[in-house]
C-alpha cells in the first residue's frame, strides 16, 4: 500500500466547511483528553478560555487590543504574499515604523494639535516600514536575491538598532541610570473610542482598503498576476519590477503603520520587544485567512482570544503557562491541518508488491 498526497480539483463548498468544523472538534477532543490526563476538568478549562477572551468587558478589550496590531501586520503582509514575495520581515518593519514614529513624537513642537501629531507619526511610521521592506524588495527586483532570508535577517537588524537606541543614542537621562527610551508624550497617544484605543478604526479602514486594492484595482490585479506567474505577467505586458516594488512599499508601509498603532495605542515606549512576535504570528493569520482581508479580521480576533484565553485558563484552573501553551498549540495545529486537508487529499494506491500480486493473478487467468 502506498500513500500519495494529491491536490484536490475543487476546494471549497460545504466539504470545506465540514472539514473546518471537524478540525475544531478534533482540537477540542485532543486538548480535552490532554487536560483530563493531567488531572484538569476540560469543561471548566474551555469555559475559562471563553471567559478570559470574550467573557468580561476587560477580557474583550484585551482581545481586541491584541488583535489590532496582528490584523494590521497580517494585512500588510498579505499584499506581499499575493505577489509571492515572501515577506517574513514583519517584525522588523513594525519596529522600524515604531522607531520613526518615536522620533517624530519626541521632536514635534509640544503645541502641535493632537490630530497633526498623530497623522505625522502615522506617516513617519509608514515611511519607516516601507523603507525597511524596500531594501530586500529592490534586491529581489533587480538581482533576484532570495527575499525570505533577507527579510528574516532584517528583523534582527531592526531589533539591534532599537537596542542601540535604548542603550546609547536615545537613553533617557531621567530614568535613574536604567537604560530605557523616554515614553512618548501624552499628546501622542491614540484617543480611546468605546474604551479601546482608536487603532481598531485604523485597522478596519485598512481592511477595507486592502480588500478593495487586491480585488478591484488594476494594480491589485497585476499584483495577483505576478503572484501566479511572473512570466505570465511579463507576457501580458505587466511591468513586473514596478509591481513588485510598489507592492513591497505598500506592504512594508502598512506593517510600519502597525508599529505606530502599537506605540501610540498600547506600548507608549519604544523597546526591542514592541513587536512582541506579531510579525511572525501575522504570517500564520494571513495564510489561515487565505489572504482574504475580511477573513483576517476574524482570524486575528480568534488568535488574540486564544492568547487571552490561555491566561484565563492559568487563572481559573491554576495550571502552568506551559500547559496553556500546549492547548493553544493544539488548536492552532488542527486549524492549519484542516486547511491542508481542504486543499489536498491523501490517495491510497497499491504499492509495488500488491501490483506484482495483481499482475501474477492476471497471468494465472
Amino acid at each position, binding site marked *: 500500500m502506498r500513500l500519495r498526497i494529491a*491536490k484536490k480539483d475543487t476546494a471549497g463548498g460545504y466539504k470545506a466547511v465540514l472539514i473546518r468544523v471537524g478540525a475544531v472538534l478534533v482540537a477540542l477532543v485532543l486538548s480535552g483528553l490532554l487536560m483530563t490526563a*493531567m*488531572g*484538569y476538568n476540560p469543561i471548566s478549562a474551555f469555559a475559562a478560555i471563553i471567559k*478570559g477572551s470574550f467573557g*468580561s*468587558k*476587560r*477580557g474583550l*478589550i*484585551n482581545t481586541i*487590543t*491584541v488583535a489590532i*496590531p496582528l490584523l494590521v501586520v497580517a494585512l500588510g503582509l498579505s499584499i506581499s504574499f499575493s505577489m*509571492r514575495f*515572501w515577506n517574513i520581515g514583519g517584525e522588523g518593519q513594525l519596529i522600524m515604523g515604531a522607531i520613526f514614529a518615536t522620533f517624530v513624537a519626541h521632536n514635534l513642537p509640544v503645541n502641535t494639535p493632537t490630530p497633526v501629531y498623530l497623522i505625522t507619526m502615522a506617516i513617519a511610521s509608514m515611511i519607516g516600514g516601507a523603507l525597511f521592506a524596500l531594501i530586500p524588495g529592490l534586491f529581489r527586483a533587480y538581482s533576484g536575491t532570495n527575499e525570505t532570508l533577507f527579510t528574516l535577517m532584517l528583523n534582527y537588524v531592526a531589533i539591534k538598532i532599537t*537596542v542601540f537606541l535604548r*542603550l546609547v543614542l536615545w537613553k533617557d537621562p531621567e530614568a*535613574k*541610570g*536604567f*537604560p*530605557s527610551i523616554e515614553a512618548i508624550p501624552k499628546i501622542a497617544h491614540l484617543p480611546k473610542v468605546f474604551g479601546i484605543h482608536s487603532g481598531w478604526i485604523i485597522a478596519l479602514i485598512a481592511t477595507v482598503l486592502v480588500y478593495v486594492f487586491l480585488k478591484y484595482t488594476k494594480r491589485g490585479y497585476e499584483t495577483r498576476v505576478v503572484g501566479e506567474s511572473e512570466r505570465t505577467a511579463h507576457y501580458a505586458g505587466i511591468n513586473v519590477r514596478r509591481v513588485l516594488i510598489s507592492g513591497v512599499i505598500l506592504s512594508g508601509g502598512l506593517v510600519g503603520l502597525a508599529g505606530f498603532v*502599537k506605540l501610540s495605542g*498600547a*506600548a*507608549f*515606549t519604544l*523597546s*526591542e*520587544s*514592541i513587536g*512582541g512576535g506579531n510579525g511572525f504570528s501575522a504570517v*500564520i493569520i494571513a*495564510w489561515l485567512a487565505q489572504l482574504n482581508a475580511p477573513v483576517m479580521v476574524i482570524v486575528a480576533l480568534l488568535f488574540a482570544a486564544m*492568547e*487571552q484565553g490561555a*491566561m*484565563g485558563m*492559568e*487563572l481559573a*484552573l*491554576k*495550571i*502552568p*503557562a*506551559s*500547559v496553556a*501553551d*500546549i492547548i493553544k*498549540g*493544539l488548536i*492552532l*495545529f488542527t486549524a*492549519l*491541518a484542516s*486547511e*491542508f486537508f481542504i*486543499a*489536498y487529499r491523501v490517495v491510497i494506491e497499491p504499492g509495488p508488491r500488491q501490483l506484482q500480486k495483481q499482475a501474477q493473478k492476471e497471468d494465472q487467468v
Partner: protein
Amino acid sequence: MNFRKIMTVILALVLVVGVFAGCAQSSVTTAAAAETTAAAAETTAAAAAEKIKVGVIYISPKNDGGWSQAHATGFANAVAAVGADKIDLKEIENINDADAQQTETALNQLVADGCQLIFATSFNYMDVVEKVALENPEIKFEHCSGYKSADNFANYFGQIEQPRYLSGIVAGRMTKTNTIGYVAAMPIPEVYRGLNAFTLGVRSVNPDAIVKVTWTNTWFNPQLEKEAAISLIDSGADVLAQHQDSTATQQAAQEKGVYGIGYDNPMYSEAIKDAYLTAPVWNWGAYYQTRLQGMVDGTWATGSYWGGMNEGVIALDAMTALVPADVQTEVNGLIDTMKAKGNDFVFAGPIKDNTGKERVAAGTSLPAADQFSMDWYVEGVVVAE
C-alpha cells in the same frame, strides 16, 4: 514548484515538532502542576467567599530555578503563614516585561478576575503597573525593583548586595588564578550594584583578583548563559558568579571543573555538587507575609521597601563542604556586622571606579540614591571582550 504546498507542509511540520517539544517540557511540569491542583482543591474546600484574591505576574516560568521561583516560593510560604483560607493566589507566568501590551493585558486579566492586590515581579513592568494602578484606584499594586509609587502603588526590593559581598569573600578565597567570572544580565543599576558589591567582597580579602564580567542582555536564557559562562572559564576564570535566573552558570562550572556561586535560590543539587559553593538568595516570604497580612487586617499601605539581611528578606545560602572551614568562619563572622550596618558597610569608602577615579571618599559611604542609580564599575572589574 508550488510554494503554497511547501509552505503548508513546513508550517504543519513546525507545529508537530512544537507540540512534541511542548509535551516533553510538560512532563517536567506535571509533577508541579499536580501539586498545585492538590493545593487548589484543598483551598477551594474551605470557605471561598471570604478569600482575598491576590494576583501575581512573573517574567519566566515559576519553576525556573531562579528569580521567579524565589518569588513563587515566597508567595506560597506567605499564603501558608497567613492562611490558605484567607488568600486566593492567582498567578500568570511568562509575561515579557519589555512587552508593554502583553504586560497590560495580563494585569487587566487579574483585575477582571477580581484581584484586590496585584504584584508585578520584574523591573520593566513599572510604567505599565503605574498606568493600570491609575486606572484602578480601588485596587492595590506592588512592583518589585522599581522606583515609582502612588497611593495604591507600592514598590519593594531587597539589598541583595549584602550577601553578594559575602559571596565575593568566598570567591576571593577560593580562586587560584585570581580571575573570577561573572555572568551578568542587563546593564541596569540593580546588576551594577550586585557586581560591584561582589567585587568589593572579593578584593577585601584578595586585592590581586579581578572580576571578569560578560553581559548577556537577558534575564533568562539558559543556553546563552551557559555559553557566556564557558567563555569566561576559557579565559581563565576558576570561580563563576551569576546575576541570571537559571542554573546554567552552575552547570557550566560543574562540567568544566571550576567553582560556582549561584543566585536567587539555594541552588545546591546533585548535578552541580562539585561546583556549587553558595549563593545570595531571596527570602521574599518574609516581605509578602506582612503585605498579605496587611490586606487581611485592612492595614495595607503604600510605601517603598528596601530590606536587608537584618529584615530577613535576603540571605547567604549555607556554604557547602567545598568551602574550607576557616573561610566559612570568616564569612559567618561578618554577618552580624552586615546586619547592623547594611549597605553602608558594603559601599564604604574609599572606593575607586575601574578608571581609577575616586567615587567614595574614605570615612563615608555611597548614598542610597547613588546606589540606586549606579552605572559604573568598581576597581577590579574587567569587561570581557
